[in-house]
């Protein structure tokens, strides 16, 4: 089922392309040795080049280059053996050099793609390029009545701008794309992907068209910083464009901002006001040359990528496509899963993690990695189910209090007194008592009223206060009644 907007004149298709800005995870900045640590006092992580002092010169951070290459390799992209740094010129108080060092015509990474798992199946999303650039500083407008204050801690931090082809067709696809990209970045460790801290943000290009017609005029929504907002911004913007076209007007190509409070986009600047950035090669930096050997070496160092892990999960643990996708989306989750599934039944583990655990996390709005829940804790509980000491149903009832407690499975179950009675002698005693108390029923059952089996089970369970192991009860009861 494709995504369409229903307008007065029929269906409209949404065409989307994303420019994702990912801050490279690195101790120091792209062209200086200043720290990239988040949350330091203003202007404490600043070297000469980060504040544009006279005579300061940029020196490329090789680690950042490697991170970009690794990212390129993990999105199936061509690594350009020669790339060029350019100056992008514009005046802004938090841009100390008066230009941003970026890459324009010759980026470090060329064409690539990644796969997303939509409801209709896998879809390939093209990636046009990935280039390296400096981040700007931060203008702070709310600390002083008269003045804007500048914090240059972020100035010069390394960013990767990853530009997709206009291959995305719905807000959901855009969300899936960002999630997939983020899981790849996190997996290889090139970016934390933390959108709240701003180390992953996206510019979204939106246009609409009648199915199978030519591309419409696009608007760019700048700096959207959560997946939810990306979806909302697209929904609003696409609808806005449809309304404009259907009312007989034309879309003006422009840059827009998304206001999360109002849930709408508004014009930031039109095409006429767009900057002439006067890009030209930065004479302070020679072309960036990357050897084939280095690319090969980095390729060898790549960890198992989310897609590879997904295929392995499918074959190794017989998971469905969907479950495999969910479990490999996040490195922490996949590692967690693999710790729990070791020597345990994968079907049981998957259902407990992807259903029970995830719904608990969602209900409490936390990420697994942020929670204190360990794989050992989950494994401990599952072992009680596997050994039959507690039933699946019991476990589900206990799950939430168990996760909230600080106890291990053994202590928790003892404390709650819910351990199943699986001892055959004990169960047999209970059964004998039930059968003795209901002679009429036993006779009816033996005369063919098979349905009464459930009655006996129920009585035994009641007698055991729910602790009897249903499987053991079934087994002994069957023996007794035949």
């Amino acid at each position, binding site marked *: 089922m494709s995504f369409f907007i229903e307008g007065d004149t029929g269906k409209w298709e949404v065409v989307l392309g994303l420019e994702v800005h990912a801050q490279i995870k690195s101790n120091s900045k792209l062209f200086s040795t200043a720290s990239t640590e988040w949350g330091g006092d203003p202007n404490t992580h600043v070297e000469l080049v980060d504040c544009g002092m006279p005579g300061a010169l940029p020196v490329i951070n090789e680690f950042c280059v490697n991170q970009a290459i690794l990212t390129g390799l993990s999105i199936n992209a061509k690594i350009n053996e020669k790339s060029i740094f350019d100056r992008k010129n514009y005046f802004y108080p938090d841009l*100390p050099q008066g230009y941003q060092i970026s890459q324009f015509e010759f980026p470090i990474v060329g064409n690539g793609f990644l796969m997303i798992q939509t409801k209709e199946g896998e879809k390939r999303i093209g990636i046009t390029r990935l280039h390296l650039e400096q981040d700007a500083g931060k203008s702070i407008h709310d600390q002083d009545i008269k003045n804007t204050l500048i914090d240059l801690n972020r100035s010069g931090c390394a960013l990767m701008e990853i530009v997709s082809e206009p291959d995305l067709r719905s807000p959901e696809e855009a969300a899936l794309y960002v999630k997939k990209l983020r899981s790849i970045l996190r997996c290889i460790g090139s970016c934390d992907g933390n959108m709240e801290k701003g180390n992953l943000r996206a510019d979204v290009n939106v246009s609409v068209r009648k199915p199978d017609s030519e591309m419409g005029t696009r608007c760019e929504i700048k700096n959207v910083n959560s997946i939810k907002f990306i979806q909302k911004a697209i929904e609003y913007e696409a609808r806005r464009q449809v309304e404009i076209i259907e009312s007989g007007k034309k879309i003006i190509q422009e840059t827009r901002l998304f206001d999360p409070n109002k849930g709408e986009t508004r014009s930031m600047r039109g095409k006429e006001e767009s900057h002439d950035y006067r890009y030209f090669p930065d004479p302070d930096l020679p072309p960036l040359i990357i050897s084939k050997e280095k690319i090969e070496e980095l390729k060898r160092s790549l960890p198992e990528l989310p897609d590879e892990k997904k295929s392995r999960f499918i074959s190794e643990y017989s998971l469905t496509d969907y479950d495999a996708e969910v479990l490999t989306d996040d490195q922490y989750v996949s590692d967690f899963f693999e710790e729990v599934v070791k020597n345990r039944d994968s079907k049981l583990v998957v259902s407990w993690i992807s259903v029970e655990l995830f719904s608990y996390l969602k209900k409490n709005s936390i990420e697994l990695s942020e929670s204190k829940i360990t794989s050992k804790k989950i494994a401990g509980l599952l072992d009680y189910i596997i050994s039959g000491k507690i039933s699946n149903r019991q476990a589900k009832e206990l799950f939430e209090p168990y996760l909230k407690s600080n106890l291990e499975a053994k202590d928790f179950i003892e404390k709650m007194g819910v351990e199943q009675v699986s001892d055959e002698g004990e169960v047999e005693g209970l059964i004998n008592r039930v059968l003795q108390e209901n002679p009429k029923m036993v006779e009816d059952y033996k005369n063919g009223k098979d349905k009464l089996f459930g009655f006996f089970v129920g009585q035994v369970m009641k007698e055991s206060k729910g602790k009897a192991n249903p499987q053991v009860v079934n087994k002994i009861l069957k023996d007794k009644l035949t």
Partner: protein
Amino acid sequence: MTDFSAIDITEAKKLLSQKQITATELTEFFIKQIEEKKELNCFITNTFDIALKMAKESDEKIQKGSDLGILEGIPIGMKDLFCTDGVKTTAGSKMLENFVPFYESTVSQNLWKNGAIMLGKTNMDEFAMGSANTTSFFGNVLNPIRSDDQKDLVPGGSSGGSAAAVASGQCFAATGSDTGGSIRQPASFCGLVGFKPTYGRCSRFGMVAFASSLDQAGPITKTVSDAALMLQSMCSYDDKDSTSSKKLIPNFSDYKKFDLKGKKIGLPNEYIIEGLNEEIKKKFDQCINIFKDCGAELIDITLPHTNYALPTYYIIAPAEASANLARYDGVRYGLRENSENLDDLYQTTRASGFGDEVKRRLIIGTYVLSAGYYDAYYLKALKVRQLISNDFKNAFEKCDLILTPTTPNVAFPIGEKQNDPLEMYLNDVLTVPASLAGLPAISVSAGNNNNNLPIGMQIIGRPFEEISVLAAGSAIELSKV
């Protein structure tokens, strides 16, 4: 007080090592000279206290006889383009009138490490943009050499303060920076040696940038021998400058052992331009004979794209400058004019902080990089620059060195060429090609014209072959043309 203005570094070193004089005596002598010759306006900032302290340290080292640098105890001037830790660095601009860096340029650091003594920061054209030292916010520099008709002459630029200071005996030597001729042309106008090494020899770290792909530091000295010593102390590979060269740095004084016999000296006919002063042409011919006498072979060569060098330079250098000078915005340091809002801050600060010549070049630079003009100007200029480089490459397959005049004319009176920027730019016509190609080039004095004004000759060498360039310069120097 002994007069040290007649000796060069090489001789002073000898006297210092023989303990006939002290660094403090030298320093005190030059301080006195600087105070007496204030009217030449060579220095923007004097650093006498620092100089005397450095001299004392040098004297102690000389006494102990250990840890001696190449320039131990030698007082010099530092072009005010090199950032000096704790000492005002203005680049000749109102924009940086009160700017005090908290870091040291690599070139100046290297000099201090080698025992040189800083007398002060020398005057210069604003942001090194000029050929007469008339664009400095701190006023003109006067050439200590006067014509027979006693007119005040320009010292050349942009390193005009450095050249005039050395020529008037206010210091033994001074640093300069050369983007299109800013070391060679003033050296030529003041009868001195000016040496621009191969691009990448000297680190640009801490040098206020004009045009990054062209800027290169170098010395202005009285003699070729001093130029070798100064350059030795200034050069280093520097990991703080990505364009710094890792090529082995030779002992430049080895030029003395370099034999010109059998070497081929190329004479590019394109450099004998229309408007070349007759007397300069005559000197040029005399120099040809000097090299013949040395046993060198003189051959005619062609550098066919020479004509395009000046326009190419005046596109590339302003383009780079337009970005390099964007940081002077009144936000973080330097001049900030009162303003109502952000655009106003930029406009008033930059309008008041930059002089006319700087503004002219920033506007040209912004224009040639603009959408719609980039291909026609900047991109084309880059291509022509490559052709100019190739010209030299081809020429150096046939010859070892190239001999040309340094400037089409001698020093001119202050006030001349002020109203016609193009005529002013023509000063650089013979020096700009080597800058565009990043080649080492020296200007040495080839005597005076009939009006007693110095004439400079330029020798251009292959990349990183500074030694042969120095050797050829020395040949002219020794011949006493």
